């Protein structure tokens, strides 16, 4: 053995000539390793495959002209992008390769961004500088963030686009859910533009809760909020029977009576005799615009601004219901619910109707003995430990700060800082999804409660959270499209006070503050005539035949109506044009006739509007049969010229009318004074 080795050594390195020769050969081989590695590299293999693919196609010449061999790179240092993805993904810009079955060479789907200006990893993540499939796409030791799975891809958009976009329904939904379920009560989320995601679930104060409901109801509610109302946003804390007993004991014990106290139901407060009167009043007051209620078929009907009312009679005490319906400001000065100014009979009727909406099963099996001081003390400890006071005002308990981890950069959280559990894939999206879906799976002692999300909602919330990345925070501010924030606008003076009492801004937007349920009123003073406005406030008529949500009747006094009308007519004026610039006397009957022709033939306005209840049926825009009594002529003219300029986002199409056409149409619309829908119905 030893001899053989020696002979071999002698053969190659026996004398200096042999040694020189052998060493040269070894050196040559070693030198060849690098080029060989390059030659056999994975990306060359893909480029060869690509060439083979395009050579078989009809437009081979064009495609080959576009092809560039070698490593390709998109480099944008200010955005921290070094992407070599296009080395293998060669067909991303080739329109004719949209049908290719191999994902590597297919054309990129149409998006509003140029691939070379934004790079790939900006949206898709993964390791841009890598040139092998494994390293570029998957998690490696040095690179924790693999490609983002397709279902979360809108998280890429959300890094720059902080506003709602048409093309990202899931991101929008996720952000909306984060607000609606009050995630940011506990978790701070500071967006890259410096704004915070503000919760909009408006949890009620518990300071006077004993005036409103019973301990039994509270017990059943905290055991399972969704058992009371499927739409409830309060999460489930999985409290044991004993814990729920003690918490309900404490919540009742800390409650103080309202100031001034709730009046007991008066014996002489008579509801209307007709049993259907409550239903009618509920309908007439358009309660369903905000509140949902299950109908006889078990289908939920109504809006989601206020709480569901299916079992309100089981929840609320009769005297509290009367007090609330009479004036909600008494119990909750911060409520979104308007003060309706019902008379005593209406209050009794409506409260009686709500009382009859019960869910007796909900509290049927709850039997609680009177609470002991120890139970109340234990209940208080649980309330503190679970952070109930973050959402609810509670007497004697301070709102805790920094109760849960901040999530402003959760989308870039390093995996080594996370604790995974069995059954959760070792990736960030899977971790976030699992945490949103079932937080207590990560340990029974975790405080985060169980929210009731559908699988699709979990994905949406995860998408919104994944958008909160380091890249989003650190990229140049010029890349960001800021979120739309509400202004702090409040109407002023006596009218302002009245408008706050009526909660106009719950539904209407004015100067960038308010709800989106009803039309923007920023320029309402220009748009309408004062007489119409006072009439409408007194008795709101149907403007849009097909709409369920409508302006309720608030039973305002004449002087209140005058205050409102004066304020709106003076303050809510557009600076864009003079509302007196088109006096009615200017229009000739020939123009009116011309306008009628244009209305029915050229512009076919009757497809959406009703000018004459006898013939027209258009259901989309407001009925115009009495438009001449409602609108200001200059407003109509400018609206016809460019609707979106006066109310951004309105769906009336801009018809690009000539001045003459717009003038004639205005003349026709202003000549319509036949009366409102009610009059038409009477006929």
């Amino acid at each position, binding site marked *: 053995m030893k001899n053989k080795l020696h002979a071999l050594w002698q053969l190659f390195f026996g004398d200096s000539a042999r040694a020189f020769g052998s060493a040269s050969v070894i050196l040559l081989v070693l030198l060849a390793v690098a080029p060989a590695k390059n030659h056999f590299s994975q990306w060359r293999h893909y480029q060869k495959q690509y060439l083979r693919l395009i050579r078989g196609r009809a437009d081979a010449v064009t495609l080959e002209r576009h092809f560039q061999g070698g490593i390709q790179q998109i480099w944008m240092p200010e955005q921290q992008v070094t992407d070599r993805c296009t080395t293998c993904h060669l067909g991303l810009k080739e329109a004719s390769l949209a049908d290719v079955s191999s994902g590597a060479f297919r054309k990129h789907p149409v998006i509003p961004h140029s691939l070379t200006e934004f790079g790939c990893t900006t949206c898709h993540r993964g390791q841009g500088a890598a040139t092998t499939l494994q390293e570029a796409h998957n998690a490696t030791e040095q690179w924790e963030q693999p490609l983002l*799975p397709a279902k979360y891809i809108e998280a890429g958009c959300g890094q720059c686009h902080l506003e709602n976009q048409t093309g990202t329904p899931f991101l929008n939904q996720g952000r909306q859910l984060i607000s609606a379920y009050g995630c940011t009560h506990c978790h701070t989320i500071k967006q890259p533009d410096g704004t915070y995601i503000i919760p909009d679930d408006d949890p009620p104060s518990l300071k006077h809760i004993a005036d409103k409901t019973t301990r039994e109801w509270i017990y059943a509610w905290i055991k399972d909020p969704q058992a009371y109302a499927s739409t409830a946003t309060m999460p489930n804390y999985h409290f044991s029977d004993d814990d729920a007993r003690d918490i309900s004991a404490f919540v009742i014990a800390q409650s103080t009576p309202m100031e001034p106290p709730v009046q007991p139901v008066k014996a002489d407060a008579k509801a209307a005799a007709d049993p259907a009167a409550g239903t009618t009043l509920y309908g007439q007051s358009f309660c369903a615009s905000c509140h949902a209620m299950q109908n006889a078929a078990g289908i939920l009907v109504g809006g989601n601004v206020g709480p569901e009312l299916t079992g309100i009679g089981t929840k609320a005490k009769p005297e509290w219901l009367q007090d609330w319906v009479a004036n909600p400001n008494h119990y909750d000065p911060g409520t979104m619910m308007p003060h309706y100014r019902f008379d005593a009979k209406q209050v009794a009727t409506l409260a009686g109707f709500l009382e009859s909406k019960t869910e007796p099963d909900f509290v049927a099996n709850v039997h609680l003995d009177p609470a002991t001081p120890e139970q109340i003390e234990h209940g208080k400890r649980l309330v503190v430990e679970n952070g109930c006071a973050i959402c609810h005002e509670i007497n004697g308990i301070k709102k805790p700060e920094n109760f849960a981890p901040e999530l402003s950069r959760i989308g870039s959280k390093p995996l080594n800082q996370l604790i995974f559990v069995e059954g959760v894939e070792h990736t960030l999206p899977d971790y976030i999804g699992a945490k949103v879906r079932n937080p207590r799976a990560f340990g029974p002692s975790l405080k985060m409660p169980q929210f009731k999300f559908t699988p699709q909602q979990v994905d949406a919330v995860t998408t919104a959270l994944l958008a909160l990345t380091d890249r989003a925070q650190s990229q140049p501010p010029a890349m960001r499209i800021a979120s739309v924030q509400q202004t702090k606008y409040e109407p002023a003076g006596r009218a302002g006070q009245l408008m706050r009492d009526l909660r106009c801004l719950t539904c209407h937007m004015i100067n960038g503050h308010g709800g989106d349920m009803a039309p923007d009123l920023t320029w309402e003073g220009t748009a309408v005539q004062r007489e119409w406005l006072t009439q409408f406030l007194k008795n709101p008529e149907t403007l849009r035949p097909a709409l369920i949500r409508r302006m309720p009747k608030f039973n305002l006094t004449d002087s209140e109506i005058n205050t409102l009308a004066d304020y709106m007519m003076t303050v809510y004026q557009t600076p864009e044009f003079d509302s007196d610039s088109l006096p009615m006397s200017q229009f000739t009957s020939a123009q009116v006739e011309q306008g009628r022709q244009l209305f029915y033939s050229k512009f076919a306005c009757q497809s959406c509007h009703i000018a004459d209840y006898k013939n027209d049926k258009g*259901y989309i825009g407001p009925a115009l049969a009495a438009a001449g009594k409602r609108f200001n002529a200059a407003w109509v003219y400018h609206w016809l010229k460019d609707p979106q300029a006066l109310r951004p986002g309105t769906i009336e199409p801009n*018809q690009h009318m000539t001045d003459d056409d717009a003038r004639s149409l205005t003349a026709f619309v202003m000549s319509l004074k036949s009366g409102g829908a009610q009059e038409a119905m009477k006929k």
Partner: protein
Amino acid sequence: MKPVLIAVCAVTLLMSGCSRKSKQPGPLQATATGAGIVESSGGKQIGYAGMLLDQPVVVQVNDASGSAVAGAAVYFSGPSDVGFAPAAALTDSSGQVTTTVALGRQGGRYKLTASTRDASGKKVEIQIDEIALGYQQTVGAQLNAQYCVRCHDPESTPQRVSNMDNLSVKPHSLTEGDTLNKMSDADLIAIISHGGAALNKSPLMPPWGYTLSKSDIAALVAYIRAVADPPYEAGGLVYAQKWVGKLRL
């Protein structure tokens, strides 16, 4: 002896620590077989690429006389990036299997299969078609819901009353492939931008070219193509393109 023992222990520990438990489910033990399989619900949905479909897919296994069979094994399959939960299951007491479906990451049409085996072991299957919208089609779907649907969709709900019946000339439903597939992209863009009158059609269709951007309208066309039933085949008849030119749009 000692180092050897330690080494063995270490290796065992390492191996047990590193090895991944395989989660392959065993084959389904069917307790019954059927003669046919039918779709109960969940076909022809319009979903989004990479996302879960709104409604689960439900199929039913029937015997030769057409009554439901419980305990038959049903297997779902589709393109590689489509996810089924579960991908295989036994039919319940009403003979049905329900699965949630996550579509693949590309927009387009997905052909899924549900299969079972009959008494002789022969495979019987049905095809279930689903549509996934990509980015551009999603934009189109959103615009459709905002601007188009109330006239173009005959279906009325209390929340969104259809305006179709109020129109003297009925608009085409956007899924109406028989009609819309015959129109070129240029025609569709012209009608949406300039209104029905531009192509000698009803002026009840207003022009949207001054309200929506060019890319919005392209997105709407992409959406119309994506949801067409029967499916749209690109590069089909373009007979109308000639006289689009004449109109100088």
